[in-house]
Protein backbone atom coordinates (compact mmCIF):
# COMPACT_ATOMS: atom_id res chain seq x y z
CA UNK A 1 0.00 0.00 0.00
CA UNK A 2 2.86 2.34 0.56
CA UNK A 3 3.79 1.44 -2.99
CA UNK A 4 0.83 3.31 -4.41
CA UNK A 5 1.70 6.53 -2.67
CA UNK A 6 5.31 6.22 -3.72
CA UNK A 7 4.24 5.75 -7.29
CA UNK A 8 1.76 8.54 -6.91
CA UNK A 9 4.55 10.85 -5.97
CA UNK A 10 6.58 9.92 -9.01
CA UNK A 11 3.76 9.30 -11.44
CA UNK A 12 1.36 12.07 -10.64
CA UNK A 13 3.80 14.87 -10.86
CA UNK A 14 5.21 16.34 -13.98
CA UNK A 15 7.19 19.22 -12.65
CA UNK A 16 10.20 16.94 -12.21
CA UNK A 17 12.42 16.80 -15.23
CA UNK A 18 11.56 13.33 -16.61
CA UNK A 19 7.83 14.12 -16.39
CA UNK A 20 8.21 17.39 -18.21
CA UNK A 21 10.33 15.78 -20.86
CA UNK A 22 7.70 13.19 -21.66
CA UNK A 23 5.06 15.90 -21.79
CA UNK A 24 6.93 17.66 -24.56
CA UNK A 25 7.49 14.47 -26.46
CA UNK A 26 3.80 13.64 -26.42
CA UNK A 27 2.69 13.15 -30.03
CA UNK A 28 0.36 15.82 -31.31
CA UNK A 29 -3.00 14.52 -32.32
CA UNK A 30 -5.12 16.06 -35.01
CA UNK A 31 -8.51 14.82 -33.88
CA UNK A 32 -10.44 15.73 -30.76
CA UNK A 33 -10.13 18.46 -28.20
CA UNK A 34 -7.09 20.64 -27.81
CA UNK A 35 -4.86 19.40 -25.01
CA UNK A 36 -5.48 22.30 -22.66
CA UNK A 37 -9.25 21.71 -22.73
CA UNK A 38 -9.21 18.01 -21.87
CA UNK A 39 -8.85 18.29 -18.07
CA UNK A 40 -11.57 20.93 -17.88
CA UNK A 41 -13.98 18.74 -19.83
CA UNK A 42 -13.19 15.79 -17.57
CA UNK A 43 -13.80 17.93 -14.52
CA UNK A 44 -17.24 19.19 -15.57
CA UNK A 45 -19.40 16.56 -13.79
CA UNK A 46 -17.30 16.57 -10.63
CA UNK A 47 -17.18 20.35 -10.52
CA UNK A 48 -20.94 20.62 -11.01
CA UNK A 49 -21.52 18.37 -8.00
CA UNK A 50 -18.94 20.07 -5.81
CA UNK A 51 -20.00 23.59 -6.65
CA UNK A 52 -23.73 22.91 -6.80
CA UNK A 53 -24.06 20.61 -3.82
CA UNK A 54 -21.23 21.62 -1.52
CA UNK A 55 -19.79 25.07 -2.20
CA UNK A 56 -23.06 26.81 -3.06
CA UNK A 57 -24.96 25.31 -0.06
CA UNK A 58 -22.12 26.44 2.21
CA UNK A 59 -22.59 29.98 0.93
CA UNK A 60 -26.35 29.60 1.42
CA UNK A 61 -25.69 28.39 4.94
CA UNK A 62 -23.61 31.46 5.69
CA UNK A 63 -26.35 33.70 4.28
CA UNK A 64 -29.10 31.87 6.18
CA UNK A 65 -27.24 32.43 9.42
CA UNK A 66 -28.04 36.13 9.06
CA UNK A 67 -31.69 35.53 8.22
CA UNK A 68 -34.88 34.41 9.88
CA UNK A 69 -35.92 31.17 8.21
CA UNK A 70 -39.02 29.76 9.86
CA UNK A 71 -42.07 27.72 8.83
CA UNK A 72 -43.30 30.24 6.24
CA UNK A 73 -39.86 30.52 4.64
CA UNK A 74 -39.35 26.74 4.56
CA UNK A 75 -42.72 26.38 2.86
CA UNK A 76 -41.62 29.03 0.36
CA UNK A 77 -44.52 31.33 1.26
CA UNK A 78 -42.40 34.21 2.48
CA UNK A 79 -38.92 35.32 1.54
CA UNK A 80 -36.33 35.08 4.28
CA UNK A 81 -35.90 38.30 6.23
CA UNK A 82 -32.54 39.73 7.21
CA UNK A 83 -31.97 39.89 10.92
CA UNK A 84 -28.32 40.86 11.01
CA UNK A 85 -26.33 39.09 13.69
CA UNK A 86 -29.42 38.29 15.79
CA UNK A 87 -29.05 34.54 15.25
CA UNK A 88 -25.49 34.68 16.50
CA UNK A 89 -26.25 36.83 19.53
CA UNK A 90 -29.15 34.56 20.48
CA UNK A 91 -27.09 31.37 20.26
CA UNK A 92 -24.17 32.95 22.10
CA UNK A 93 -26.59 33.98 24.84
CA UNK A 94 -28.09 30.52 25.07
CA UNK A 95 -26.70 28.22 27.71
CA UNK A 96 -27.13 25.16 25.49
CA UNK A 97 -24.64 26.56 23.01
CA UNK A 98 -21.90 26.78 25.63
CA UNK A 99 -22.75 23.33 26.99
CA UNK A 100 -22.65 21.95 23.45
CA UNK A 101 -19.34 23.68 22.71
CA UNK A 102 -17.87 22.34 25.96
CA UNK A 103 -19.18 18.84 25.24
CA UNK A 104 -17.72 18.93 21.72
CA UNK A 105 -14.29 20.15 22.79
CA UNK A 106 -13.94 18.09 25.98
CA UNK A 107 -15.12 14.96 24.22
CA UNK A 108 -12.57 15.43 21.42
CA UNK A 109 -9.84 16.34 23.94
CA UNK A 110 -10.31 12.99 25.69
CA UNK A 111 -11.29 10.71 22.81
CA UNK A 112 -8.62 11.83 20.32
CA UNK A 113 -5.52 11.18 22.52
CA UNK A 114 -7.00 7.91 23.79
CA UNK A 115 -7.71 6.69 20.27
CA UNK A 116 -4.25 7.71 19.06
CA UNK A 117 -2.32 6.23 21.98
CA UNK A 118 -4.20 2.94 22.07
CA UNK A 119 -4.31 2.70 18.28
CA UNK A 120 -0.57 3.31 18.00
CA UNK A 121 0.11 0.69 20.67
CA UNK A 122 -1.95 -1.84 18.72
CA UNK A 123 -0.19 -0.83 15.49
CA UNK A 124 3.24 -1.38 17.05
CA UNK A 125 2.03 -4.69 18.44
CA UNK A 126 0.80 -5.74 14.99
CA UNK A 127 4.26 -5.19 13.56
CA UNK A 128 5.99 -7.17 16.25
CA UNK A 129 3.67 -10.17 15.90
CA UNK A 130 4.28 -13.10 13.62
CA UNK A 131 2.53 -13.18 10.25
CA UNK A 132 -0.35 -15.41 11.27
CA UNK A 133 -1.14 -13.76 14.58
CA UNK A 134 -0.90 -10.33 12.98
CA UNK A 135 -3.40 -11.34 10.31
CA UNK A 136 -5.80 -12.76 12.91
CA UNK A 137 -5.67 -9.52 14.88
CA UNK A 138 -6.17 -7.39 11.77
CA UNK A 139 -9.24 -9.40 10.80
CA UNK A 140 -10.56 -8.95 14.35
CA UNK A 141 -9.95 -5.20 14.11
CA UNK A 142 -11.81 -5.11 10.80
CA UNK A 143 -14.93 -6.39 12.51
CA UNK A 144 -14.88 -3.60 15.08
CA UNK A 145 -14.09 -1.05 12.38
CA UNK A 146 -16.90 -2.17 10.08
CA UNK A 147 -19.78 -1.64 12.49
CA UNK A 148 -21.86 1.32 11.24
CA UNK A 149 -21.97 4.28 13.68
CA UNK A 150 -25.64 3.81 14.59
CA UNK A 151 -25.05 0.11 15.24
CA UNK A 152 -22.00 1.02 17.37
CA UNK A 153 -24.30 3.23 19.39
CA UNK A 154 -26.85 0.42 19.69
CA UNK A 155 -24.20 -2.05 20.89
CA UNK A 156 -22.87 0.30 23.56
CA UNK A 157 -26.35 1.28 24.63
CA UNK A 158 -26.99 -2.42 25.16
CA UNK A 159 -23.68 -2.96 26.99
CA UNK A 160 -24.51 0.01 29.25
CA UNK A 161 -28.13 -1.01 29.85
CA UNK A 162 -29.11 -0.50 33.49
CA UNK A 163 -30.70 -3.84 34.23
CA UNK A 164 -29.13 -6.33 31.82
CA UNK A 165 -26.05 -4.50 30.64
CA UNK A 166 -22.67 -6.18 30.74
CA UNK A 167 -21.00 -3.08 32.16
CA UNK A 168 -23.07 -3.16 35.35
CA UNK A 169 -22.72 -6.92 35.54
CA UNK A 170 -18.93 -6.58 35.36
CA UNK A 171 -18.89 -3.78 37.96
CA UNK A 172 -20.91 -6.02 40.29
CA UNK A 173 -18.19 -8.64 39.91
CA UNK A 174 -15.68 -6.36 41.65
CA UNK A 175 -15.16 -7.28 45.29
CA UNK A 176 -17.44 -5.07 47.40
CA UNK A 177 -14.57 -3.44 49.33
CA UNK A 178 -12.79 -2.47 46.11
CA UNK A 179 -15.93 -1.12 44.49
CA UNK A 180 -16.71 0.84 47.67
CA UNK A 181 -13.20 2.19 47.79
CA UNK A 182 -13.17 3.25 44.14
CA UNK A 183 -16.74 4.39 43.59
CA UNK A 184 -18.28 4.48 47.03
CA UNK A 185 -20.84 1.85 46.15
CA UNK A 186 -20.99 -1.89 45.59
CA UNK A 187 -24.35 -2.51 43.91
CA UNK A 188 -24.49 -1.40 40.29
CA UNK A 189 -27.67 -3.17 39.23
CA UNK A 190 -29.97 -0.70 37.51
CA UNK A 191 -27.38 2.08 37.27
CA UNK A 192 -28.67 4.14 34.33
CA UNK A 193 -25.64 5.20 32.33
CA UNK A 194 -27.57 7.05 29.67
CA UNK A 195 -29.58 9.49 31.75
CA UNK A 196 -26.97 12.14 32.50
CA UNK A 197 -24.83 14.01 30.03
CA UNK A 198 -21.53 13.13 31.71
CA UNK A 199 -22.19 9.38 31.74
CA UNK A 200 -23.57 9.46 28.18
CA UNK A 201 -20.23 10.97 27.18
CA UNK A 202 -18.32 8.35 29.14
CA UNK A 203 -20.05 5.61 27.17
CA UNK A 204 -19.62 7.63 23.97
CA UNK A 205 -15.88 7.89 24.61
CA UNK A 206 -15.63 4.12 25.11
CA UNK A 207 -17.64 3.59 21.93
CA UNK A 208 -15.74 6.06 19.73
CA UNK A 209 -12.30 5.05 21.01
CA UNK A 210 -13.13 1.38 20.50
CA UNK A 211 -14.34 2.04 16.97
CA UNK A 212 -11.43 4.38 16.16
CA UNK A 213 -8.55 2.15 17.25
CA UNK A 214 -8.54 -0.11 14.14
CA UNK A 215 -8.00 2.72 11.66
CA UNK A 216 -5.15 4.22 13.68
CA UNK A 217 -3.58 0.79 14.25
CA UNK A 218 -3.66 -0.21 10.58
CA UNK A 219 -2.35 3.20 9.44
CA UNK A 220 0.50 3.09 11.96
CA UNK A 221 1.31 -0.45 10.85
CA UNK A 222 1.43 0.74 7.25
CA UNK A 223 3.82 3.50 8.26
CA UNK A 224 5.99 1.15 10.30
CA UNK A 225 6.39 -1.17 7.33
CA UNK A 226 8.03 1.68 5.46
CA UNK A 227 10.78 2.15 8.05
CA UNK A 228 13.93 0.25 7.04
CA UNK A 229 14.60 -2.60 9.49
CA UNK A 230 18.34 -1.75 9.51
CA UNK A 231 17.51 1.26 11.68
CA UNK A 232 16.00 -1.01 14.31
CA UNK A 233 18.89 -3.46 14.09
CA UNK A 234 21.36 -0.65 14.57
CA UNK A 235 19.39 0.57 17.58
CA UNK A 236 19.38 -2.90 19.06
CA UNK A 237 23.10 -3.32 18.54
CA UNK A 238 23.59 -0.01 20.30
CA UNK A 239 21.59 -1.36 23.22
CA UNK A 240 18.53 0.85 22.83
CA UNK A 241 15.44 -0.35 24.67
CA UNK A 242 11.97 -0.61 23.16
CA UNK A 243 10.77 2.67 24.70
CA UNK A 244 13.82 4.63 23.58
CA UNK A 245 13.69 3.09 20.11
CA UNK A 246 10.07 4.17 19.77
CA UNK A 247 10.78 7.80 20.70
CA UNK A 248 14.09 8.09 18.85
CA UNK A 249 13.28 6.20 15.65
CA UNK A 250 9.64 5.27 15.17
CA UNK A 251 8.02 8.47 16.35
CA UNK A 252 10.16 10.97 14.38
CA UNK A 253 9.84 8.93 11.19
CA UNK A 254 6.09 8.51 11.58
CA UNK A 255 5.45 12.14 12.50
CA UNK A 256 3.64 12.89 9.24
CA UNK A 257 1.39 9.87 9.76
CA UNK A 258 0.59 10.95 13.30
CA UNK A 259 -0.11 14.49 12.13
CA UNK A 260 -2.69 13.29 9.60
CA UNK A 261 -4.21 10.79 12.02
CA UNK A 262 -4.52 13.44 14.72
CA UNK A 263 -6.27 15.88 12.43
CA UNK A 264 -8.58 13.22 10.99
CA UNK A 265 -9.47 12.04 14.49
CA UNK A 266 -10.17 15.57 15.67
CA UNK A 267 -12.41 16.17 12.67
CA UNK A 268 -14.28 12.89 13.12
CA UNK A 269 -14.73 13.35 16.85
CA UNK A 270 -15.83 16.96 16.49
CA UNK A 271 -18.78 15.93 14.36
CA UNK A 272 -19.66 12.64 16.05
CA UNK A 273 -23.37 12.18 15.42
CA UNK A 274 -24.80 8.69 14.77
CA UNK A 275 -23.47 7.15 17.99
CA UNK A 276 -24.59 10.15 20.05
CA UNK A 277 -28.11 9.99 18.59
CA UNK A 278 -28.51 6.35 19.62
CA UNK A 279 -26.93 6.87 23.04
CA UNK A 280 -29.65 9.39 23.84
CA UNK A 281 -27.95 12.66 22.96
CA UNK A 282 -30.77 13.71 20.66
CA UNK A 283 -33.39 14.05 23.37
CA UNK A 284 -31.11 15.26 26.17
CA UNK A 285 -30.22 18.89 25.59
CA UNK A 286 -27.50 18.74 28.22
CA UNK A 287 -25.76 16.11 26.08
CA UNK A 288 -25.85 18.04 22.78
CA UNK A 289 -22.66 18.55 20.87
CA UNK A 290 -22.42 21.30 18.25
CA UNK A 291 -23.60 19.17 15.32
CA UNK A 292 -26.52 17.84 17.33
CA UNK A 293 -27.40 21.34 18.48
CA UNK A 294 -27.27 22.69 14.91
CA UNK A 295 -29.73 20.16 13.49
CA UNK A 296 -31.90 20.15 16.63
CA UNK A 297 -32.27 23.92 16.37
CA UNK A 298 -32.79 23.94 12.60
CA UNK A 299 -35.35 21.12 12.48
CA UNK A 300 -37.27 21.74 15.67
CA UNK A 301 -40.95 22.56 15.53
CA UNK A 302 -41.34 25.30 14.46
CA UNK A 303 -38.03 25.23 12.56
CA UNK A 304 -35.36 27.85 13.23
CA UNK A 305 -33.17 27.28 10.21
CA UNK A 306 -31.44 30.63 10.70
CA UNK A 307 -30.03 29.93 14.14
CA UNK A 308 -29.35 26.31 13.12
CA UNK A 309 -27.26 27.69 10.26
CA UNK A 310 -25.46 30.04 12.66
CA UNK A 311 -24.42 27.08 14.86
CA UNK A 312 -23.41 25.16 11.74
CA UNK A 313 -21.25 28.12 10.68
CA UNK A 314 -19.50 28.12 14.07
CA UNK A 315 -18.89 24.36 13.83
CA UNK A 316 -17.65 24.66 10.25
CA UNK A 317 -15.24 27.47 11.14
CA UNK A 318 -13.86 25.42 14.04
CA UNK A 319 -13.34 22.47 11.70
CA UNK A 320 -11.79 24.64 8.99
CA UNK A 321 -9.19 25.92 11.44
CA UNK A 322 -8.17 22.31 12.02
CA UNK A 323 -8.42 21.56 8.29
CA UNK A 324 -6.08 24.40 7.46
CA UNK A 325 -3.39 22.63 9.48
CA UNK A 326 -4.17 19.35 7.72
CA UNK A 327 -4.03 20.84 4.24
CA UNK A 328 -0.77 22.62 4.99
CA UNK A 329 0.63 19.34 6.23
CA UNK A 330 -0.41 17.51 3.06
CA UNK A 331 0.84 20.23 0.75
CA UNK A 332 4.15 20.29 2.61
CA UNK A 333 4.43 16.50 2.34
CA UNK A 334 4.43 16.25 -1.39
CA UNK A 335 3.54 18.15 -4.42
CA UNK A 336 -0.02 17.15 -5.12
Amino acid sequence: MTDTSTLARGGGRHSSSPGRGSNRRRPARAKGLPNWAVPYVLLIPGLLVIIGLLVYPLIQMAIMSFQKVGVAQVAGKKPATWVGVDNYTSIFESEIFWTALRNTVVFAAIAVPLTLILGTAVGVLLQKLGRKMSLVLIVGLMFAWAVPPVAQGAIWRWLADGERGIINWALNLLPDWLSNLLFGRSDWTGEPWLNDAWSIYMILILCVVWAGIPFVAVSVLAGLKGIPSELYEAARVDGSGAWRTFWKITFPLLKPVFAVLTVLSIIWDFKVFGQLVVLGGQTNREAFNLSMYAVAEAFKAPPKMGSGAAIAVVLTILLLIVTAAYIRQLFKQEEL
Partner: protein
Amino acid sequence: MTPYARRLIGKIGMNALAVIVLLVMIFPVYWMVSTAFKSNEQIFTTEFIPFPTDFTFEHFTNVLTKGVAEHSIWLYLGNSAIVALVTVLIGAVFALLSATAIARFRFKGRTSFLATLLIMQMIPAEALVIPLFMNVKRLGLYDQLAGLIVTQIALTLPFGIWMLRTFVAAVPKSLEEAAWIDGASRFTTFWKVLFPLVAPGLVATSIFSFITAWNELVMALYLINDPTKYTMPVALQFFFGQRGTDWGAIMATSTLMTLPVVIFFLLVQRRMVSGLVAGAVKG
Protein backbone atom coordinates in the same frame (compact mmCIF):
# COMPACT_ATOMS: atom_id res chain seq x y z
CA MET B 1 18.58 -15.89 31.36
CA THR B 2 19.89 -16.65 27.93
CA PRO B 3 18.97 -14.23 25.16
CA TYR B 4 17.08 -17.06 23.51
CA ALA B 5 14.92 -17.63 26.59
CA ARG B 6 14.32 -13.91 26.92
CA ARG B 7 13.22 -13.65 23.33
CA LEU B 8 10.93 -16.64 23.75
CA ILE B 9 9.28 -15.09 26.80
CA GLY B 10 8.94 -11.82 24.94
CA LYS B 11 7.29 -13.60 22.06
CA ILE B 12 4.83 -15.42 24.31
CA GLY B 13 4.02 -12.17 26.11
CA MET B 14 3.46 -10.41 22.79
CA ASN B 15 1.08 -13.10 21.60
CA ALA B 16 -0.78 -13.13 24.90
CA LEU B 17 -1.20 -9.36 24.62
CA ALA B 18 -2.46 -9.77 21.07
CA VAL B 19 -5.08 -12.27 22.26
CA ILE B 20 -6.27 -9.84 24.95
CA VAL B 21 -6.47 -6.96 22.45
CA LEU B 22 -8.34 -9.20 20.03
CA LEU B 23 -10.85 -10.25 22.69
CA VAL B 24 -11.46 -6.68 23.86
CA MET B 25 -11.89 -5.34 20.33
CA ILE B 26 -14.11 -8.15 19.14
CA PHE B 27 -16.26 -8.49 22.26
CA PRO B 28 -18.82 -5.75 21.47
CA VAL B 29 -19.30 -7.19 17.97
CA TYR B 30 -19.55 -10.70 19.40
CA TRP B 31 -22.06 -9.49 21.96
CA MET B 32 -24.21 -7.97 19.21
CA VAL B 33 -24.26 -11.20 17.20
CA SER B 34 -24.72 -13.49 20.20
CA THR B 35 -27.59 -11.35 21.55
CA ALA B 36 -29.21 -11.51 18.13
CA PHE B 37 -29.24 -15.32 18.38
CA LYS B 38 -30.36 -15.55 22.00
CA SER B 39 -33.91 -16.22 23.13
CA ASN B 40 -35.63 -13.42 25.03
CA GLU B 41 -35.25 -15.46 28.21
CA GLN B 42 -31.49 -15.44 27.85
CA ILE B 43 -31.39 -11.75 26.84
CA PHE B 44 -33.58 -10.40 29.63
CA THR B 45 -31.62 -11.79 32.52
CA THR B 46 -29.12 -10.22 34.89
CA GLU B 47 -26.89 -13.28 34.54
CA PHE B 48 -23.98 -13.41 32.13
CA ILE B 49 -24.68 -15.91 29.38
CA PRO B 50 -21.57 -15.95 27.20
CA PHE B 51 -23.02 -18.10 24.44
CA PRO B 52 -26.61 -18.49 23.20
CA THR B 53 -27.32 -22.04 24.39
CA ASP B 54 -30.86 -21.84 23.04
CA PHE B 55 -29.78 -20.59 19.63
CA THR B 56 -32.71 -19.04 17.74
CA PHE B 57 -33.43 -17.19 14.49
CA GLU B 58 -36.56 -15.72 16.06
CA HIS B 59 -35.27 -12.13 16.13
CA PHE B 60 -34.11 -12.24 12.53
CA THR B 61 -37.43 -13.63 11.29
CA ASN B 62 -39.21 -11.07 13.46
CA VAL B 63 -37.41 -8.03 12.07
CA LEU B 64 -37.64 -9.38 8.53
CA THR B 65 -41.38 -10.11 8.71
CA LYS B 66 -42.92 -7.81 11.33
CA GLY B 67 -40.12 -5.29 11.24
CA VAL B 68 -40.37 -1.85 12.75
CA ALA B 69 -42.50 1.24 12.02
CA GLU B 70 -44.96 -1.16 10.35
CA HIS B 71 -42.59 -2.29 7.63
CA SER B 72 -40.25 -5.22 7.23
CA ILE B 73 -36.54 -4.58 7.57
CA TRP B 74 -36.29 -5.85 3.97
CA LEU B 75 -37.83 -2.58 2.82
CA TYR B 76 -35.22 -0.51 4.67
CA LEU B 77 -32.39 -2.77 3.57
CA GLY B 78 -33.66 -2.30 0.02
CA ASN B 79 -33.86 1.48 0.37
CA SER B 80 -30.35 1.61 1.82
CA ALA B 81 -29.04 -0.62 -0.97
CA ILE B 82 -30.70 1.50 -3.70
CA VAL B 83 -29.33 4.73 -2.26
CA ALA B 84 -25.83 3.33 -1.77
CA LEU B 85 -25.65 1.57 -5.15
CA VAL B 86 -26.91 4.49 -7.25
CA THR B 87 -24.60 6.81 -5.31
CA VAL B 88 -21.67 4.55 -6.11
CA LEU B 89 -22.53 4.08 -9.79
CA ILE B 90 -22.87 7.79 -10.53
CA GLY B 91 -20.13 8.76 -8.08
CA ALA B 92 -17.63 6.31 -9.60
CA VAL B 93 -18.00 7.76 -13.11
CA PHE B 94 -17.70 11.34 -11.87
CA ALA B 95 -14.77 10.50 -9.59
CA LEU B 96 -12.89 8.65 -12.32
CA LEU B 97 -13.20 11.54 -14.76
CA SER B 98 -12.09 14.11 -12.19
CA ALA B 99 -9.31 11.90 -10.85
CA THR B 100 -7.96 11.40 -14.36
CA ALA B 101 -7.98 15.15 -14.91
CA ILE B 102 -5.98 15.93 -11.78
CA ALA B 103 -3.62 12.97 -11.95
CA ARG B 104 -2.81 13.20 -15.65
CA PHE B 105 -2.90 16.90 -16.42
CA ARG B 106 -1.42 20.08 -15.06
CA PHE B 107 -3.83 22.90 -15.59
CA LYS B 108 -4.72 26.28 -14.22
CA GLY B 109 -6.83 25.97 -11.11
CA ARG B 110 -5.67 22.44 -10.33
CA THR B 111 -4.22 23.31 -6.94
CA SER B 112 -7.33 25.24 -5.94
CA PHE B 113 -9.43 22.28 -7.00
CA LEU B 114 -7.34 19.95 -4.82
CA ALA B 115 -7.61 22.30 -1.87
CA THR B 116 -11.37 22.53 -2.37
CA LEU B 117 -11.58 18.73 -2.37
CA LEU B 118 -9.74 18.56 0.94
CA ILE B 119 -11.77 21.30 2.57
CA MET B 120 -15.05 19.75 1.42
CA GLN B 121 -14.12 16.45 3.05
CA MET B 122 -14.08 18.26 6.36
CA ILE B 123 -17.44 20.01 6.11
CA PRO B 124 -19.81 18.25 8.51
CA ALA B 125 -22.92 16.76 6.96
CA GLU B 126 -24.78 18.07 9.99
CA ALA B 127 -24.03 21.61 8.78
CA LEU B 128 -24.72 20.94 5.09
CA VAL B 129 -28.05 19.29 5.78
CA ILE B 130 -29.57 22.68 6.65
CA PRO B 131 -29.09 24.41 3.25
CA LEU B 132 -29.49 21.10 1.39
CA PHE B 133 -32.86 20.57 3.05
CA MET B 134 -34.03 23.95 1.72
CA ASN B 135 -32.77 23.17 -1.80
CA VAL B 136 -34.19 19.66 -1.87
CA LYS B 137 -37.53 21.04 -0.73
CA ARG B 138 -37.47 23.76 -3.37
CA LEU B 139 -36.65 21.24 -6.12
CA GLY B 140 -39.48 18.95 -5.04
CA LEU B 141 -37.05 16.20 -4.05
CA TYR B 142 -37.97 16.20 -0.37
CA ASP B 143 -39.11 12.78 0.85
CA GLN B 144 -37.68 11.10 -2.25
CA LEU B 145 -34.82 8.64 -2.46
CA ALA B 146 -33.54 10.66 -5.45
CA GLY B 147 -33.02 13.67 -3.20
CA LEU B 148 -31.15 11.57 -0.70
CA ILE B 149 -29.00 10.03 -3.45
CA VAL B 150 -28.00 13.46 -4.75
CA THR B 151 -26.77 14.48 -1.29
CA GLN B 152 -24.91 11.20 -0.85
CA ILE B 153 -23.08 11.72 -4.13
CA ALA B 154 -22.06 15.15 -2.88
CA LEU B 155 -20.83 13.75 0.43
CA THR B 156 -18.82 10.89 -1.08
CA LEU B 157 -17.39 12.53 -4.20
CA PRO B 158 -14.56 14.64 -2.73
CA PHE B 159 -13.02 11.68 -0.94
CA GLY B 160 -13.70 9.44 -3.96
CA ILE B 161 -11.72 11.75 -6.26
CA TRP B 162 -9.00 12.15 -3.66
CA MET B 163 -8.55 8.40 -3.23
CA LEU B 164 -8.86 7.52 -6.92
CA ARG B 165 -6.29 10.13 -7.88
CA THR B 166 -3.51 8.03 -6.34
CA PHE B 167 -4.63 4.96 -8.28
CA VAL B 168 -4.69 6.82 -11.60
CA ALA B 169 -1.31 8.37 -10.89
CA ALA B 170 0.10 4.91 -10.12
CA VAL B 171 -0.51 3.76 -13.71
CA PRO B 172 2.68 4.47 -15.70
CA LYS B 173 2.06 7.20 -18.21
CA SER B 174 4.28 5.48 -20.74
CA LEU B 175 1.56 2.88 -21.35
CA GLU B 176 -0.85 5.54 -22.57
CA GLU B 177 1.86 7.23 -24.60
CA ALA B 178 2.60 3.96 -26.32
CA ALA B 179 -1.07 3.67 -27.24
CA TRP B 180 -1.10 7.23 -28.57
CA ILE B 181 1.93 6.59 -30.70
CA ASP B 182 0.17 3.55 -32.09
CA GLY B 183 -2.59 5.90 -33.18
CA ALA B 184 -5.23 5.15 -30.56
CA SER B 185 -7.73 7.90 -29.91
CA ARG B 186 -7.95 9.61 -26.56
CA PHE B 187 -11.08 7.67 -25.66
CA THR B 188 -9.64 4.30 -26.73
CA THR B 189 -6.54 4.98 -24.67
CA PHE B 190 -8.64 5.80 -21.65
CA TRP B 191 -10.99 2.86 -22.08
CA LYS B 192 -8.54 0.15 -23.16
CA VAL B 193 -5.37 1.16 -21.33
CA LEU B 194 -6.09 3.30 -18.29
CA PHE B 195 -9.48 1.94 -17.25
CA PRO B 196 -8.52 -1.76 -16.85
CA LEU B 197 -5.47 -0.78 -14.82
CA VAL B 198 -7.41 1.60 -12.57
CA ALA B 199 -10.33 -0.83 -12.14
CA PRO B 200 -9.10 -2.34 -8.85
CA GLY B 201 -8.70 1.14 -7.39
CA LEU B 202 -12.11 2.07 -8.71
CA VAL B 203 -13.60 -0.94 -6.92
CA ALA B 204 -11.88 0.02 -3.65
CA THR B 205 -13.05 3.63 -3.96
CA SER B 206 -16.58 2.51 -4.82
CA ILE B 207 -16.75 0.23 -1.82
CA PHE B 208 -15.64 3.06 0.39
CA SER B 209 -18.36 5.31 -1.03
CA PHE B 210 -20.89 2.51 -0.65
CA ILE B 211 -20.08 2.15 3.04
CA THR B 212 -20.28 5.90 3.60
CA ALA B 213 -23.69 6.10 1.94
CA TRP B 214 -24.85 2.91 3.69
CA ASN B 215 -23.96 4.30 7.12
CA GLU B 216 -25.11 7.88 6.56
CA LEU B 217 -27.66 9.05 9.11
CA VAL B 218 -28.15 12.80 9.18
CA MET B 219 -29.33 13.38 5.58
CA ALA B 220 -31.58 10.33 5.71
CA LEU B 221 -33.03 11.57 8.98
CA TYR B 222 -33.96 15.06 7.79
CA LEU B 223 -34.59 14.67 4.06
CA ILE B 224 -36.95 11.69 4.33
CA ASN B 225 -40.23 11.73 6.19
CA ASP B 226 -42.17 8.87 4.59
CA PRO B 227 -41.56 5.63 6.58
CA THR B 228 -41.59 3.53 3.40
CA LYS B 229 -38.47 5.43 2.29
CA TYR B 230 -36.44 5.09 5.48
CA THR B 231 -32.94 3.74 5.24
CA MET B 232 -31.50 1.29 7.79
CA PRO B 233 -29.79 3.84 10.09
CA VAL B 234 -33.07 5.76 10.41
CA ALA B 235 -35.17 2.61 10.86
CA LEU B 236 -32.93 1.46 13.70
CA GLN B 237 -33.89 4.58 15.70
CA PHE B 238 -37.50 3.43 15.84
CA PHE B 239 -36.70 0.38 17.94
CA PHE B 240 -35.70 2.72 20.75
CA GLY B 241 -38.93 4.68 20.62
CA GLN B 242 -40.92 1.59 21.52
CA ARG B 243 -41.97 0.79 25.05
CA GLY B 244 -39.61 -1.78 26.56
CA THR B 245 -36.54 -1.97 24.33
CA ASP B 246 -36.50 -5.17 22.26
CA TRP B 247 -32.77 -5.85 22.39
CA GLY B 248 -33.00 -9.07 20.36
CA ALA B 249 -34.59 -7.19 17.47
CA ILE B 250 -32.14 -4.29 17.74
CA MET B 251 -29.11 -6.55 17.74
CA ALA B 252 -30.48 -8.63 14.85
CA THR B 253 -31.05 -5.43 12.84
CA SER B 254 -27.60 -4.10 13.74
CA THR B 255 -26.08 -7.42 12.66
CA LEU B 256 -27.90 -7.32 9.31
CA MET B 257 -26.69 -3.77 8.81
CA THR B 258 -23.09 -4.58 9.68
CA LEU B 259 -22.80 -7.70 7.55
CA PRO B 260 -22.33 -6.12 4.10
CA VAL B 261 -19.82 -3.63 5.53
CA VAL B 262 -17.76 -6.40 7.12
CA ILE B 263 -17.60 -8.26 3.83
CA PHE B 264 -16.55 -5.16 1.91
CA PHE B 265 -14.05 -4.16 4.58
CA LEU B 266 -12.26 -7.44 4.48
CA LEU B 267 -12.04 -7.07 0.68
CA VAL B 268 -10.53 -3.59 0.53
CA GLN B 269 -9.00 -2.94 3.93
CA ARG B 270 -5.48 -2.28 2.72
CA ARG B 271 -6.40 -0.02 -0.16
CA MET B 272 -8.69 2.03 2.02
CA VAL B 273 -6.00 3.06 4.42
CA SER B 274 -3.67 3.85 1.56
CA GLY B 275 -6.28 6.26 0.23
CA LEU B 276 -6.96 7.91 3.55
CA VAL B 277 -3.41 8.57 4.59
CA ALA B 278 -1.99 8.77 1.08
CA GLY B 279 1.01 11.00 1.06
CA ALA B 280 1.50 10.89 4.78
CA VAL B 281 3.03 7.42 4.81
CA LYS B 282 6.61 7.62 3.68
CA GLY B 283 7.13 4.65 1.38
